[in-house]
């Protein structure tokens, strides 16, 4: 039964009104309200401080993506190849943290990482460190907090691709005399690159836009674009500049989206 294409019109109109128009309006505001059009962008893209902030934003997202990949891949592999009847439990444990609020998890890390927190107390008692480590309000806690939030997305993306790889391929390699490692690196891993790409783009994109973790765990040790937008809004109140920054962030997101579409097209999968 073919439904009339017009049934999609209300949804499309809604998004044009409240998604496309606001973003366009935002793009215009960033250039219009200043006498010298584009002065905001000149400041953003030439001032060493703002270039540094953009660099930190990208570097942080890249670090979080890489860490999520390294930590998440074995879990995805275990889930698909080894978990057997435990796979529902593994899926539940992977998805369950997504049910908790971001504030809850950040709060948990603050308790753990505090100067007299659980981690420091344990390390001191074990005699591994002399004085408490300054874990909180450092880039370390930010990366840990972000990886904790985003790694489930990586695991699920990789697992869905691993699921589609025929295990017989790896078994053939083994029978033909390849070792475990060789089989993994030459057969399974290359076949799972699609999942790695999908997961990485997703995690990178989400990391780029996050600010709650940075705000509550970073303590100003890292300045990123979303954090500056937040500050423009709450304290500085230079909205035109805030709009310019959100546009830079938007361009980053669009680039990721484009990359995603290219990958999907190449794979021949329909969205």
């Amino acid at each position, binding site marked *: 039964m073919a*439904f009339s294409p017009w049934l999609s019109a*209300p949804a499309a109109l809604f998004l044009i009104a409240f998604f496309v128009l606001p973003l366009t309006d935002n793009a215009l505001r960033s250039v219009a309200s200043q006498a010298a059009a584009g002065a905001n962008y000149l400041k953003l893209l030439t001032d060493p401080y703002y270039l540094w902030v953009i660099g930190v934003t990208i570097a942080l997202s890249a670090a979080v993506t890489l860490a999520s990949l390294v930590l998440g891949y*074995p879990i995805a592999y275990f889930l698909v190849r080894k978990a057997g009847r435990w796979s529902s439990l593994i899926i539940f444990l992977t998805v369950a943290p997504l049910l908790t*609020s971001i504030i*809850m998890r950040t709060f948990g890390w603050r308790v753990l990482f505090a100067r007299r927190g659980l981690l420091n107390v344990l390390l001191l008692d074990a005699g591994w460190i002399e004085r408490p480590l300054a874990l909180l309000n450092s880039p370390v806690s930010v990366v840990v907090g972000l990886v*904790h939030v985003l790694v489930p997305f990586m695991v699920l993306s990789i697992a869905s691709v691993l699921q589609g790889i025929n295990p017989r391929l790896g078994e053939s390699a083994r029978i033909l005399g390849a070792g*475990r490692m060789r089989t993994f690196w030459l057969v399974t891993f290359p076949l799972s690159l699609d999942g790695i790409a999908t997961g990485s783009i997703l995690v990178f994109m989400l990391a780029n*836009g996050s600010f*709650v973790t940075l705000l509550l765990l970073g303590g100003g040790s890292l300045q990123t674009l979303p954090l500056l937008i937040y500050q423009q809004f709450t304290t500085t109140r230079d909205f035109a500049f805030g709009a310019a920054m959100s546009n830079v962030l938007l361009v980053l997101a669009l680039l990721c989206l484009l990359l995603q579409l290219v990958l999907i097209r190449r794979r021949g999968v329909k969205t």
Partner: protein
Amino acid sequence: MIRRLLPRKVRAESCAPDAALLLYVVLFFAFMLLPIIIVVVVAFSATEYITFPIQGVSLRWFRRIYEYRPFFNSLRVTLEIAFLSALFGALLGVPAALALTRWKHPIASLAMTFLLSPLSMPFIVLGFALLFFLSAVGFGASFLSLLIAHTVVSLPYVVRTVAGVYRGLSPNLEESALVLGASKWQAFRYVTLPMIRPGIFAGCLFAILLSVDNLPISFFFGSPATSTLPVVMLSYLENSFDPSIAAVSTVQLVFALTFLLVIERFYGLKGMAPAS
């Protein structure tokens, strides 16, 4: 059975890596659950300050949720926004998903990409842009603005899950109904709708869970009448660090788990994994 074909050396060696992998899996999930468990434990502490392990057990911080009005009031706003945005997301999204899934035209996939695109935008950009736009239009930082902002995110979630379910269904089922004399409305009401129902519920479930925690969007519409729970929690955290936030989080977690269990009980979670 493949194992028997492998050389003996290979068979012997294959246990150690499995054990290492299993150990890693256990450590990984300890890492994932640790901060959550800590917060739940801290919620029951008896002291004014936060220590871990806690000293003394009490329920005073749960009572504080009720006494500190902003928590209680914002919870209501949060739930109203979450359910209403899921409802409007479904009202707009379900017809769109049905219309576009089987429409064989180049525009169809383009339109689908467009309907899903809000999910790829950083929410902070969306919130920032929407606040100024809605203020210019005259809505300001109102309940309606907040609802519109959340619906922009709920809509693509519903579209994605419903399209995923509908794509997997055979068109023959509806055709049979039509051939047997059902009207288009009857075919939709008695054939299509029951089959896509899991998709609708899954989409709404995701939309609600996401909306409840969507600080980056809610944050911009913060006025006393429109502050959602995460916004209130954030501003509370910026001033004081006491166990009440842990108590609120624990209550929230219990709500989410109950909600998920109820859905599981009635509709099953199997078909709920987000379709690509």
